[in-house]
């Protein structure tokens, strides 16, 4: 059975009559030991999905559908049950390590908190386990005593503390929301490797949320691309990259500077070959209030046809577990 | 050509339209209740400038100590003066003293604070230490001491209260201005060639205006209390000019004979201070989310 199975997740806000749909029918699944990358730009709903899984949606937002963690529906579980699960069975790593850590509490105590809460350990036992967790993430207590405060650590080190906190009770599912966005690129690589090792070692499932296709390519087994609250393309990472089906995925990939061939300047000389322009997706992401009948990408899509504005595209299966939500796909996965 | 004052004020308060402001204003209970109380208080004071039901300087002994009646809505005092008229005139007194005292604090404190934030360095140190020095003195007691030494009277009490408004505004302005100075649009203004004075006026002050406005309402309330306190002690506004504090003092000996003489001025003080505090709270609620939303 899948560790996590999200079925038709919808998140709404506003008056029931004129509700804005922040998430519109999201379907995802994840097995133990698998890393699922959730990709998209701001406003696509990827962070909202993470919050929905954790039961941390802001007030005024309603979730519908099913989020099954080992068969248990998290949407209908009460707050008490969710508190018992958070930190114990499902843990989260956030983007900004400085705000995720309490600046006035030493790191040892912050890591030990979960242990005392969920496993009822004594202070001494919890401290020992915390020291072990911190050692596991590369902050061994001889160099990094438990009494250190967050501001005494660098950004990468703080993120390691956050990861240690997430791990202490041995969760089965880890949700990492842009865990490396605030970090330098060399530190980013280290943290991603660390998360990878840990997921491997503990046999956890990992949802890695990011806007960076490079990270998705390098660190995930399967991926889902989100746009305007919907999943528009999903499948094993290698498959999706080999055969990008949805126009948005293609647009996203083409817009990345590293993908393009780069500066036209030849070595040394003042050549005047015009620099290559990046392929852009025209327009910009529409407001959450704009959820049209048909495909949300229609106003920006170069391949849109008449029925795209009226008919909502459902996920169509292409080869090998790969699917895309577009009306104009040929069976081979090309856009007609 | 420097932009007009009007543009700066408009920018400070109305950068996202009247409709939005009205909506949040009507939604805030503190603002509404406080607003009503404050506006009533000010309206009464304004009205009293040109008219009171009965003259306040006329002593009509036969009518003394009358209770609530159709002729005298709140009764009369020990000299037969109409209480409503006395309260109205007292309101004028409170408002005038408060406006001038707070204005003094604002007019001197804000530029000092802005200067400290803009210049930094030793000037900042000196100004802030002077500020700390001023804060070390308990405001009301010091005001009492000043008026006792300089002689009682409305003018001296205004000065005494005003002096203690200066450090409050200086500190607030400096703290808030320092935050603004760190923002990137200040760097952009420097790149555009603007100097610190121009930047303080065009960029810093409009961005801290909401904080200042809220503080003004708080200081106003405190000034009214301070004035009442000084007048009660006989150090503030002198008779025959009516003041709420003086009325309270005179009512002391008559407490069991005519308690209304103490209750009504006391209630007037309490209501006006309450109204101003609520108004300030409400304003903060309205202005704060807008500040946060700008990011």
């Amino acid at each position, binding site marked *: 059975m899948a560790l996590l199975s999200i079925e038709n997740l919808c998140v709404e806000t506003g008056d029931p009559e004129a509700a804005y749909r922040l998430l519109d029918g999201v379907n995802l699944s994840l097995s133990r030991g*698998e890393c699922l990358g959730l990709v998209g730009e701001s406003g696509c709903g990827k962070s909202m999905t993470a919050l929905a899984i954790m039961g941390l949606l802001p007030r005024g937002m309603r979730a519908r559908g099913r989020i099954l963690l080992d068969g248990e529906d998290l949407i209908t579980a009460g707050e008490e049950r969710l508190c018992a699960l958070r930190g114990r069975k499902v843990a989260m790593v956030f983007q900004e390590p400085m705000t995720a850590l309490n600046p006035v509490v030493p790191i040892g105590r912050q890591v030990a908190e979960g242990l005392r809460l969920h496993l009822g350990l004594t202070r001494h036992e919890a401290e020992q386990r915390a020291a072990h967790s911190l050692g596991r993430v590369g902050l061994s207590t001889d160099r990094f005593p438990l009494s250190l405060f967050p501001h005494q650590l660098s950004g990468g080190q703080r993120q390691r503390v956050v990861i240690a906190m997430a791990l202490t009770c041995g969760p089965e599912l880890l949700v990492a929301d842009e865990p490396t966005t605030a970090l330098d690129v060399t530190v980013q690589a280290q943290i991603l490797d660390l998360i990878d090792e840990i997921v491997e070692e503990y046999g956890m499932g990992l949802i890695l949320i990011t806007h960076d296709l490079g990270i998705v390519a390098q660190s995930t087994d399967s991926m889902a691309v989100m746009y305007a609250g919907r999943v528009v393309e*999903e499948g094993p990472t290698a498959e999706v990259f080999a055969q990008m089906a949805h126009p948005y995925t293609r647009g996203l990939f083409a817009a990345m500077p590293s993908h393009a061939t780069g500066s036209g300047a030849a070595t040394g000389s003042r050549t005047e070959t015009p620099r290559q322009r990046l392929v852009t997706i025209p327009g*910009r992401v529409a407001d959450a209030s704009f959820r049209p009948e048909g495909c949300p990408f229609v106003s920006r899509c170069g391949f849109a046809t008449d029925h795209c504005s009226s008919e909502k595209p459902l996920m169509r299966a292409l080869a090998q577990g790969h699917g895309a939500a577009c009306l104009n796909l040929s069976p081979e996965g090309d856009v007609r | 050509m420097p932009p007009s004052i009007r543009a700066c004020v408009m920018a400070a308060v109305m950068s996202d339209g009247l409709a939005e402001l009205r909506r949040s204003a009507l939604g805030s209970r503190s603002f509404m209740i406080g607003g009503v109380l404050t506006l009533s208080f000010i309206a009464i004071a304004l009205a009293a400038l040109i008219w009171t039901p009965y003259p306040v300087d006329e002593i009509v002994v036969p009518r003394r100590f009358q209770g609530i009646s159709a002729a005298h809505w709140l009764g009369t005092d020990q000299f037969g003066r109409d209480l409503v008229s006395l309260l109205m005139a007292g309101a004028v007194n409170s408002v005038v003293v408060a406006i001038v005292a707070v204005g003094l604090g604002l007019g001197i404190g804000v530029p000092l604070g802005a200067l400290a934030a803009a210049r930094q360095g030793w000037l900042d140190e000196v100004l802030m230490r002077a500020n700390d020095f001023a804060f070390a003195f308990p405001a009301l007691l010091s005001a009492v001491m000043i008026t006792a030494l300089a002689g009682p009277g409305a003018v001296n009490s205004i000065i005494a209260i005003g002096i203690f408004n200066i450090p409050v505004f200086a500190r607030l302005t400096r703290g808030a201005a320092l935050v603004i100075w760190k923002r990137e649009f200040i*760097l952009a203004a420097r790149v555009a060639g603007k100097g610190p004075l121009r930047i303080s006026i065009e*960029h810093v002050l409009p961005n801290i205006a909401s904080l200042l406005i809220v503080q003004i309402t708080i200081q106003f309330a405190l000034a009214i209390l301070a004035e009442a306190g000084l007048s009660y002690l006989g150090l503030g506004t002198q008779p025959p000019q009516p003041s709420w504090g003086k009325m309270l003092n005179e009512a002391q000996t008559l407490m069991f004979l005519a308690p209304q003489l103490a209750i009504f001025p006391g209630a007037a003080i309490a209501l006006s201070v309450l109204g101003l505090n609520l108004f300030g709270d409400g304003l903060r609620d309205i202005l704060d989310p807008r500040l946060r939303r700008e990011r």
Partner: protein
Amino acid sequence: MTVASGQPLLQVEDLVREYRLPQRGLFGPTPVFRAVNGVSFSVERGRSFGIVGESGCGKSTLARTVMGLEAPLSGRVLLEGQDIFGLAPGELRRLRRRFQMVFQDPYGSLDPRFTVERVVAEPLEVLLPGLSRRERLERVGETLESVGLKASDTGRYPHEFSGGQRQRIAIARALITEPDLIVADEPVSALDVSVQAQVLNLIMDLQERRGLTFLFISHDLSVVRHITDEVAVMYAGEIVETGPTREVFVNPQHDYTKSLIDAVPYPDPRRSRRLKPAGRTGGVG
């Protein structure tokens, strides 16, 4: 565009900038932090020069010092041969017409209380005071159009615009005095990928159309690789490697440059870092 002289537009020589840190004790020397430690480079007219490095390497400090916003401990910044720190304040102010800046944070670099018109026209107030109100408005309108916005946007406020649009406003502000040099400090770092692409294209267009010279500072190697002619890699306040962009990226000499390039995640799953591919699972339910 003025006739190019043989001299580089911007020359930075042995620039050193220090910060004073909070004192340790009551007595003893105040500790200092050397943010920029003897940096030298030059930028030819019409070229795009990139400074790349991670956080804390001193690149933002360098940018602010080059713009004359902070005074260096030693070293010179020469704009067309003139040492900007040797000028009288009035002369420096006049020179600012020729070099402007674009900042990183689209949400912080525009005064939320200013209308778009005031924001974009701000440099004109001091640097081109001779213009009439009408002329100024015209210029603002033209510049807005040239960055892809509408002249009718002048009466609106920054919070009504998206991040990408705000950066365009910031670019318009930098362009309005028709400078020769634009220093861009992480101008696209806060933007989404697709918006970033639009703004980068805009920068490239403007550079070609107007012959602008760019000093482009970023931590994002892919962006720098795409948009610059020459690049300098900064680490701990010093330039560790410099050269034509293609060269430096294809054939990095310094170890730090190599580790930097190596760490960038490349969007090709075949180069995946995953230790062991997990069992085949379906994303489709």
